[in-house]
């Protein structure tokens, strides 16, 4: 087992060189995650980091914990299986806005309402980075830089906060890759909060959305303690500009974890199929 006290943030990084573009926000998310894991003080082997497909979804390979890099959109389903099968593990899922809200949108909704005790780091750059710059569900309707939607999508973006609250999320924080220290604190709080917690990270794509470099001027901290009821959070953040950082909502729903009992062995069920002679009948009665 890892000597817990001695692990630094660097110990939670691997020696694999990220494929990310220089300046990509995801580097700082990795830094913040490693810092958070060091702060949590849990052994590396007790943590599982699960992702789908996208630039952001590459993150598990750059850490030194157990990881699973699956198919596009299914990170939350894989993570749910890991946590339900192994409640002793700390389970973190991570990925992009396309992975989590488009192809995997249904799993996001159901992960919020199922409330399994795990954390989801949603790295939002309002674009499909990996496939070279198409609109995602969080892209503004008038963004015209993609060859697929040269006149903009004309479709309203989804607000992850509102979607999560409406779906029953138990904890929602927003961070910014340009402020990795705050982000690390948010990840620690999310992991420590029981139930399903979302950390929505504004993580610029400098290659396809270079204007996102200006996000550092847009972000602003939340000016109140986290809302404790979904209705309160929805009211408070009804007109949210999407740049409020901090813990925005912390609920107290009971996490989902079916109770396990071991009162029988598999072979005990065979008896249920054995033909028994009901009392009163003659076992060897010959046909009339």
């Amino acid at each position: 087992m890892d000597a817990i006290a001695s692990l630094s943030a660097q110990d939670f990084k691997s020696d694999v060189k990220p494929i990310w573009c220089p300046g990509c926000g995801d580097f700082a998310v990795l830094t913040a995650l490693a810092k958070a894991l060091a702060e949590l003080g849990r052994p590396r082997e007790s943590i599982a980091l699960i992702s789908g497909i996208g630039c952001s979804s590459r993150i598990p390979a750059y850490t030194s914990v157990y990881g699973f890099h699956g198919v596009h959109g299914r990170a939350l389903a894989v993570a749910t299986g890991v946590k339900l099968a192994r409640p002793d593990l700390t389970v973190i899922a991570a990925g992009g806005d396309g992975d989590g809200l488009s192809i995997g949108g249904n799993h996001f909704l159901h992960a919020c309402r199922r409330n399994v005790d795990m954390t989801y780091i949603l790295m939002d750059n309002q674009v499909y980075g990996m496939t070279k710059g198409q609109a995602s569900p969080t892209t503004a309707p008038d963004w015209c830089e993609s060859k697929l939607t040269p006149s903009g999508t004309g479709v309203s973006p989804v607000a992850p906060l509102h979607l999560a609250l409406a779906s029953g999320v138990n904890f929602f924080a927003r961070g910014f890759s340009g402020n990795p220290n705050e982000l690390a604190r948010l990840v620690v709080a999310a992991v420590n909060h029981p139930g399903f917690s979302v950390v929505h990270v504004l993580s610029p794509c400098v290659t396809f959305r270079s204007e996102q470099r200006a996000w550092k001027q847009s972000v602003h901290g939340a000016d109140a303690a986290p809302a404790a009821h979904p209705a309160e959070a929805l009211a408070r953040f009804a007109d949210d500009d999407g740049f409020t950082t901090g813990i925005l909502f912390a609920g107290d729903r009971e996490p989902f974890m079916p109770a396990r009992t071991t009162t029988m062995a598999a072979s005990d069920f065979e008896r249920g199929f054995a033909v028994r002679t009901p009392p009163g009948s003659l076992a060897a009665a010959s046909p009339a």
Partner: protein
Amino acid sequence: MEAGHDGQAASTIGPADLAWSTPAAADHRTVPAVSVAVIGSGGAGAMRAGEILLEVAAVAGFYGLMTRAMGPQIRGGEAAALLRIATAPVSSLDDHFDLLIALDWANFNRFAAEIPLAPTTVVIADPAEGDVPEAVLASGARIGRLALKDLARAVPGGRTNMVGLGAAAAMVGLPSEIVAAVVSGQLGRKGDAVLAASVAALKAGADAAAALPAISRLAAPLHDGVARWNISGNQATGLGALKGGVSFVAAYPITPATEVLEWMAPALAKTGGMLVQAEDELAAINMVIGASFAGAPALTATSGPGLALMIESLGLAVASETPIVVVDVMRGGPSTGIPTKSEQTDLNIAVNGLHGDAPHLVLAPNSIADCLFTTQWAVGLAETLQAPAIVLSDQALGQSRAIVAPPREPPAASGRLTVPARDHVPASYRRYAETESGVSPMAIPGTPGSTYVADGLEHTERGTPSAQAADHATQLDKRARKLEGFDYGPSWADVEGEGEIALLTWGSVTGPAREAAAQARARGIGTRLISLRLLLPAQPARLAEALRGVRKLLVVEQSHGRQFHKFVRSCYDLPAEVAVISHPGPLPIRPAEILDQLAAWE
């Protein structure tokens, strides 16, 4: 009346008091097997009567099979219980029915094709339910008019299906005291009045049957000392999974696979595991992959539409070398197709559906009892070989019940090769190490010193994503080698009999093929039966051996597009003369059709 509820004794009569005497048969010939169909509209209790008849046969020492034909209604639609009861194990329904009990004729035409009748058939029809349908009269069957409804009405609380059941039991020759005992065992908790009404109705039916045209009665059961099980294919699949060690199931409901899940949910809850209802099949298979990655042997069950949704992630299980089992209880396709009826048409997608070069296991149970064996074997193989296994059952197996000898067990599997805890040297563990067998030790999360990232991207031995030709070649080769090089032993197929003619088949169609082969041998036609249980990886050397000396091969399958024939052609060398019997569901393939071809060849 509940025992002790108000200080009174619960039951004052026992089954022995309930027996009626069965009238002597008009005809003393006995036969080794009798086929009975019970039909009725929703609520008439045809299914219930069929289930009781099967259980009575089991207690009396017979073997049997009961399939069901249902209308499309969600609840309360017409239903048919199709039974065959015999002194020896039953592998398929017969070519026609000896006895048809029509509780009513509502929507009979929907079933007519599934209930072949012959001039020797006796049809019990209630005059109060209107004219006997033209299709029935055209068969030349003898009609026995029995006022089922009136007889039931004459008994306070009497039910028509119990009158019909009494008549059927008497005509087949099942002992009245066992009928009474089984009914009493099932109704006991409902109290004496209900039980007495049922027994009076049974007796009324049995008495009235004496005046009807007789069918040949069942010969005495073999008191072979072998225990009997009464089990459905879907239950056997669930039990096989549990015995194989499955502790995690995630699934999305779909006909006709749901009973696998319904049986497993409470069983898993009592054996330290769990079943999770997922939001869709994409989630189900990925939850299963996650659970298995975390160390739990895991399974999902679905039918064709769900398998189609799972295909991308089956490839993920291949590439990441995560053991999982996907049970597909096949139904008529494509698209939503015929959800309640059987067809062997997911073979193509199970074998060829995955993109990329994706070696995986495909297995198929070939009887109701074999659902247990094959599913348990599939779990062991998936775990041992760190690969996904698809188990192709179908509606005809899954939703049918049989009285069988206790199913046999597959050979013990060596199970998942894992790495022990070790000192922390993160760079040293190679999850996808090239090994001679192709199987590499798998570190389960929680194991110190062996953290790694499982990946669906092509990867190096360490698991780091790689697009290099050499890594791709190494990993493709390793994943193919571990499946192809494994010794699957004799369970790859059932090979029975000798002869220059062979039947090659798979899955539920093995039942009628086995029956036809037995009938052919009885006529002196040497016939081999080869039923493939392991479809992928193909076993060319073994099939060549099984086919040695065979001149003519008859391929039998239930699909319109000859999927199995094309599959065996693509994997195997076949003898020069090959004929194919291939037609789509929902009609089952009957032994006679197969026998005709064998006889024509002789």
